């Protein structure tokens, strides 16, 4: 049973942000401090005599803690593909950011046994003044490829991106589609034990998008451990071995991809009826 070794262990992971207003005076800056002091009498009047005023012109600046993600626990075993389902703003991206160490959690913990590669956003690290080729080297290094790996895969990356003709042109002359294709191509050629993939990375026109999804599928089936955040439920159902459903930052369900997707769709339909 060595293949069922856990590569990712997540226990009670949570991330909170401070929203609306400022927590500490020293976070406000002088402007806000003066403005808030000057507007205090008006706010006081508004609060006491004109109910409306406080919500429009001078909103109360008291913020509150908001959990973007809370009580998330799961494991991903070696070679397994875990699909993550949820609406926009449900906390899927926060989860990927936590697992890729971009931001730290507020509670709970995660353990990761292996090198992590992130395919989160296309074009990370690109610089407009540099050529396509220079940008591949730059972004590749930042994403975690060694110089030898980049040299090995350069031709493959260029070929996949379909920008061969312009590869020695500064990318500020590229169309946005070309930049996104190049960006996807670099990220897709990462080779780590664990891959975090966000489906929004699949970019470009319909044809290239299909190729992106195809590429993600081949990464997912190549024996790597994958966390896959999906929006296209059909794709997600096909790729994943198991899935979790996140709703408003909480884990709602864990199970077979088909069941999780069905539950997600049922809930979404129900919400539409309510509207």
């Amino acid at each position: 049973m060595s293949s069922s070794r856990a590569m990712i262990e997540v226990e009670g992971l949570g991330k909170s942000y401070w929203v609306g207003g400022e927590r500490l005076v020293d976070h406000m800056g002088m402007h806000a401090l003066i403005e808030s002091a000057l507007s205090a009498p008006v706010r006081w009047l508004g609060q006491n005599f004109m109910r409306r005023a406080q919500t429009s012109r001078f909103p109360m600046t008291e913020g509150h803690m908001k959990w973007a993600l809370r009580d998330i626990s799961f494991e991903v075993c070696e070679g397994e593909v875990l699909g993550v389902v949820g609406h926009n703003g449900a906390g899927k991206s926060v989860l990927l950011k936590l697992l890729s160490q971009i931001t730290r959690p507020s509670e709970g913990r995660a353990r990761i046994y292996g090198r992590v590669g992130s395919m989160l956003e296309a074009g990370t690290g690109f610089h407009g003044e540099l050529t396509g080729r220079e940008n591949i080297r730059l972004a590749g290094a930042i994403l975690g490829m060694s110089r030898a790996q980049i040299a090995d895969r350069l031709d493959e990356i260029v070929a996949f991106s379909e920008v061969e003709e312009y590869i020695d042109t500064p990318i500020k002359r590229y169309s946005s589609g070309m930049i996104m294709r190049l960006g996807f191509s670099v990220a897709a050629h990462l080779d780590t034990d664990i891959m975090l993939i966000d489906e929004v990375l699949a970019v470009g026109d319909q044809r290239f998008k299909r190729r992106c999804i195809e590429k993600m599928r081949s990464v997912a089936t190549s024996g790597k451990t994958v966390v896959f955040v999906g929006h296209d439920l059909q794709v997600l159902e096909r790729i994943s071995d198991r899935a979790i459903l996140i709703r408003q930052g909480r884990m709602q369900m864990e199970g077979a991809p088909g069941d999780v997707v069905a539950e997600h769709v049922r809930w979404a339909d129900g919400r539409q009826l309510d509207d």
Partner: protein
Amino acid sequence: MKSEVQGVRQSGRWPVEIRPPSGWPRLDLPSVWRRIDIVYILGLRDIKVRYKQSFAGITWAVIQPLITMFVFTAVFDGVVKVPTGGSPYPLFALAALVPWTYFVHSITKATTCLIVDQDLIRRVYFPRLILPISAVSGGIVDFLIAFSLLLIVMPIYGVGPSLAILLIPAFFLFSLMTALTLGLWLSAINVRYRDVNNAIPFFTQILMFASPVAYPSSVVPAQWQWAYALNPMATVIDGFRWALLDGQPAPGPSSLVSIAVVTVGLVGGLYFFRWQEDRFADVV
């Protein structure tokens, strides 16, 4: 593949623990070292980008100290008559302007590095210390070019290098450390308070008057030399002058003050940066 995974895991590198920030931050310099090629590639990026679509290109590395040298010579030699201890004033100024230009360029870059590369901070993980380190390293090329200029100008004034020139790398390294120290503190503060951005040009200008760039450090009274050396660049510039020019005094015992300031500042800066680092992606 699997054995490699096991092997590294046994060496204590894995698992990666992801938990809330708590307690004293860990420096974890080996993790910076493992990704050191990013320092190189970001440094290369900055050099390339700076001189793209530029007519004078890399000669800018020479133009800046050279023009400043002319201006300083006109003002501090032509008008004010600053004593130089026997050295020709243009050379006396240039020996200071070369490390000074590097230093100003480096702290300016280091201070803004987290803002300039905030996209990276929000989108991909690597040890954030890489960014200020890369910012102060990128100027090495410019420094070397400007230093060659110095070596060309020296014989024009009949000054030949002595053995002391071998100590130049040490003095340069010290200016790099000084720039990194300031960069660590200021870049981390800059993430939250962009005031630092506005203060930097002003700050470097004032610091120049507090450094022996246009005048010799010997004009400072002996009993105040230790206070003067609280500015490590005073020691760097004295070192450059001593190593390159004839008859310039060697940095005195007050340079120990400079070394202490940089050591304490650098270690403190590393911890401060690591402590703040967890919030960069959320705040920047």
